[in-house]
């Protein structure tokens, strides 16, 4: 038993799988951090991700090109985000309920669109991403195969996390985002447009979450299955809180959860006597425990969730 566990945890395959599974969480949480830092929460992250998954699959199907699929997936996420932004910024409606509504609506809509396009029985395989070893970097012992022999989406993720961190903490625009999320009235009084800043942050979040969604359809299963995001959107919400709204830390937390998922799959495959349900439930249990453990020690943006209406 111990032998098996060591085999599980100390293998390159396991680490590589962890990085792979972490990708959608890292990208989605980076986007959500931008949005939440500006004061808008996206409970509808799951729906956004699903839209991205479908968009990616449909785009890849018709263009027979995974990269165009990726673009379509991002656009799909962006469109959903734009609707959410309109509801909560311009209409100043409840962010939480709007997000919950979108989850329900998009689940139905994606099913509807998929079935309408492809019928009841067909589930076509589409152009997708294959792992691409980075020249030179993938040769480095241990680190190489884990981090640099992945699908291109993972490499994009490294870029996204880096760029988001820099933008958020080292640019004037990043400062505006943070101000709008902490004290929108103060930001408004110095000439920062609260609405415009939030719109941009939310739509950017949508684009990134759309990218995260394409992981499932273009990077893992090569097709679309109803509800294929399996709750990752909700886990991303928890990741954001656990990471204290920092994109770099969120990537690390995402790695942790990616590992949890990899463990689950491995346990399932190896039939170590643990029922598969435990393995599949493990990421959610872990999320819950970590969230409970970190109670109250976080720096939430003060205006998060509060609609801002100018006088």
């Amino acid at each position: 038993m111990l032998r098996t566990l060591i085999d599980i945890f100390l293998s390159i395959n396991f680490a590589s799988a962890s990085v792979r599974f972490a990708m959608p969480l890292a990208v989605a949480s980076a986007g959500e951090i931008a949005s939440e830092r500006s004061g808008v929460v996206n409970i509808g992250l799951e729906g956004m991700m699903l839209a991205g998954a479908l968009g990616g699959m449909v785009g890849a199907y018709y263009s027979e090109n995974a990269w165009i699929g990726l673009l379509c997936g991002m656009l799909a996420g962006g469109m959903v985000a734009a609707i959410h932004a309109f509801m909560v910024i311009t209409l100043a409606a409840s962010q939480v309920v709007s997000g919950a509504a979108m989850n329900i609506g998009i689940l139905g809509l994606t099913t509807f669109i998929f079935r309408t396009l492809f019928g009841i029985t067909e589930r076509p395989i589409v152009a997708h991403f294959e792992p691409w070893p980075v020249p030179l970097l993938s040769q480095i012992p241990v680190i190489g195969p884990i981090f640099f022999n992945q699908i291109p989406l993972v490499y994009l993720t490294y870029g996204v996390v880096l760029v988001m961190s820099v933008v958020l903490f080292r640019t004037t625009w990043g400062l505006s985002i943070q101000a709008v999320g902490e004290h929108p009235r103060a930001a408004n009084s110095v000439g920062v447009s609260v609405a415009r800043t939030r719109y941009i942050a939310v739509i950017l979040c949508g684009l990134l979450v759309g990218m995260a969604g394409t992981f499932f359809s273009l990077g893992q299963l090569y097709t679309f299955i109803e509800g294929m995001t399996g709750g990752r959107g909700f886990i991303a919400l928890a990741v954001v809180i656990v990471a204290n709204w920092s994109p770099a830390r969120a990537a690390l937390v995402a790695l942790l959860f990616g590992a949890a998922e990899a463990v689950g799959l491995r346990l399932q495959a190896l039939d170590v006597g643990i029922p598969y349900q435990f393995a599949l439930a493990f990421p959610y249990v872990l999320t819950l425990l970590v969230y409970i453990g970190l109670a109250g020690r976080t720096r939430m943006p003060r205006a998060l969730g509060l609609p801002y209406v100018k006088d």
Partner: protein
Amino acid sequence: MNLRLPLRRAFAPEAGWLPGLGASVLAIAGALAVSGATLAMAGFRPLEVFGVMANGALGSPQAIGVTVTNAIPLILAGLGVALPFRCGLLNIGGEGQIYMGALGATLVTLAFPGLPAAVHLPLALLGGFVGGGLWGAFPGWLRASKGLNEIITTIMLNYIGFWIVSFLVHGPLKDPDSYGYAWTVKVPESARLPMILPEARIHLGIVVALILAAFAHFLLWHTTLGFEMRAVGAGPETSRFSGIAVRRSVVLSLLIGGGMAGMAGAAIILGVQFRLSDFFSPGYGFDAIAVALVGQTTPFGVVAAGLFFGALSNGVGSAHRDLGVAQGTTSFIQGVTMMFIVASQSLTLIRLLRKRRMARLAENAH
């Protein structure tokens, strides 16, 4: 995170429940319009589809029976969302509470085999309430004592609850004679919900749902506990300042709400399926949010909305069978309806309307 939905109504606050009804009706109309357009884009004729849906939902006693049977878990789970909502909490854990409630009911029926129906059935329903109630009270306690956002905790518990039930029906609770199907033995007759309208196949669950709706209404508006819950939902700081036990209200509302959702699970097992399996709920817990919202978070509104959405999913099923319309339509219409309701509670809209109303009042005063 501020989760309190502004419960202010867009129109004059003293006008009672009529504006809420109006808003919901308009929202449904809007959603039907949007989905009609979508259907048209997909090559269907919207009016034809709606006709088939209406007929499929209400066109015969059997159709009505299916509609009502669909509605029962929606109403119960909808109450499970509406009640905590009045206390300022969003219960997204309906799905998990349904599963745990179903588990609770099943365990009770299996543990006490020989009881007479008059005892066995209520006891089983109680088991459902307890199962769901615990699954709601736990995140309620986390929120009350540690301030942990109930959205995240309840969502995680949804998945955990589901997998617990899945594990049990594939393992310890599995019916040994089931030839590989993952379910429990059949629930004994004495614990089942009897048919009250056999021609339409409507079982006692609807009566249970209506009784619980009446109970929820009474609780919220005629008891001190309900008063406190609504006070906490309208102003937690003020409630604390005046001496209301805020934590107690929070936990209690999620306990009772979870219990109601648990009853939804019990009703499905004891009234329709007669055995516990995994995947028995096609997302009732999430639909319940739509039901609660469209029902303007009042118990009787939830009943009406539950019946409407029950009819909707029944109708969509017919449209699927007869015309080939894809199944996702139900969720889509639900989601769009919710979006319209959310939009109707938009603060900018409320402000605009209030400004115009006050301007009109000022004019009339001169």
